[in-house]
């Protein structure tokens, strides 16, 4: 059975990609950003996911203003790298996992999430920058990646709650896939930033830290944030943090925070990164101890009755 072992969030600032592509990662400005991902690279090298589900947003690359799908799942065998106006990024083609993607599509749609399915889709920095941050710059990405593009370009994006629930549906789909696969879900974008209009440059670190805290401990609270509040507090483009909630929804309610990194700025954006791991099931380790509270209470009542009787 396939299972989701962990979730990763990461900003996907295009300038980070440009710094990698132009070999500027050693500059002090960029070093500060890349150093924050060193431990993450070690972690994922050990975790060795078989598949990554990459939740990101397309930045007018695969989708223009002609068609604006709210959730678009990549079901292709591979995804070409988009030319975003300065030539395609020199990164490996993204290989998909069409079988698992098709299974997820079927399961999730029958669970009433009306996905758009893409048998051909170019992917942009939104997906490839987090892959670089986690895997470095290999000749081939170490595992297949299933892209899930979420509309955050045209208002309104899906609500945080909808995203969280979609994460749960994706988890259910993954767990009903027969092959033994370790899956890691990436939620990308954010954190606070605004790149348009006179308010461009907005950063709200206080909001970001609270968001990270809640992402680990109290994600339900984040699902109640309105778009207005997100845009007001975290910038017009900060609204893309709803995508992190798809990742979070796909994990257990209680997770272990493996690692966290936050820095300001990368170009125009606050960079936030967190790794959350599902706990190894207690039932496997100590089957005898795990008795639901309800049963315990029932057993106690029976015991009392026996004594009285």
């Amino acid at each position, binding site marked *: 059975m396939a299972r989701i072992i962990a979730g990763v969030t990461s900003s996907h600032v295009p300038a980070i990609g440009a710094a990698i592509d132009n070999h500027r990662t050693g500059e002090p400005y960029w070093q500060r950003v890349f150093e924050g991902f060193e431990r993450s690279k070690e972690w994922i090298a050990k975790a060795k996911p078989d598949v990554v589900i990459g939740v990101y947003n397309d930045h007018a690359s695969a989708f223009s203003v002609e068609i604006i799908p709210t959730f678009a799942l990549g079901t292709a065998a591979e995804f070409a790298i988009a030319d975003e106006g300065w030539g395609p990024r020199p990164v490996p083609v993204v290989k998909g996992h069409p079988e698992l993607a098709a299974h997820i599509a079927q399961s999730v749609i029958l669970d009433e999430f009306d996905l758009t399915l893409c048998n051909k889709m170019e992917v942009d920095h939104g997906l490839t920058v987090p892959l670089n941050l986690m895997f470095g710059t290999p000749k081939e990405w170490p595992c297949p990646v299933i892209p899930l593009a979420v509309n955050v370009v045209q208002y309104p994006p899906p609500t945080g709650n909808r995203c969280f629930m979609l994460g749960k549906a994706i988890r259910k789909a993954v767990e009903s896939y027969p092959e033994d696969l370790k899956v890691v879900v990436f939620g990308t974008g954010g954190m606070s930033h605004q790149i348009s*209009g006179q308010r461009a440059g907005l950063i709200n670190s206080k909001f970001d830290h609270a968001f990270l805290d809640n992402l680990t401990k109290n994600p339900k609270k984040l699902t109640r944030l309105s778009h207005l509040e997100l845009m007001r507090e975290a910038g017009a483009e900060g609204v893309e943090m709803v995508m992190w909630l798809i990742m979070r929804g796909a994990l257990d309610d209680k997770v272990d925070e493996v690692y966290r990194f936050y820095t300001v700025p990368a170009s125009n954006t606050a960079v936030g990164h967190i790794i959350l791991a599902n706990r190894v099931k207690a039932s496997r380790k100590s089957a005898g101890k795990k008795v639901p509270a309800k049963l315990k209470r029932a057993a106690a009542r029976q015991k009392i009755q026996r004594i009285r009787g």
Partner: protein
Amino acid sequence: MTAKKIVVKDYDDIPGTYVFDADRSRQGYHLNMFCMSLMKAENRKAFKADEAKYLDQFPLTPDQREAILKRRYNRMLELGGNIYFTAKLGATDGHPFQHLAALMTGSTQQDYADLMLRGGRPVDGNRSRSGQFEKSKTPGKASKPKAASKGKKRRG
């Protein structure tokens, strides 16, 4: 009722911000499709060779056309442009994104870069035009609408 009712959009209260919604998407359709065309190298070359001629392919309004030719980025947003699309125009010109951000915020690229290094534009005083969401409001001391003062210039 003869007059068209105007939909009040809560997000219009955010200063210095043009939320790209379905109305703006429709209004800016051709502007954004022009930007989208710049994803192809041959189109970038053709545009650079003769900007006005290249723009003739797109049914833009005179205002949109002028905003593109003069690289007025906020005006493009106001006329239905979306930043992820207009950024392609900036990329075609060979500018880093911070150049566009500096233009939109009315500062130099160096000043904008310095602002970001200092931790970015603070949210306090920049939450709303009406000032109603400022948390640190104290009686008798109005919150400072920093970007709002610039935002007020915005039309539409």
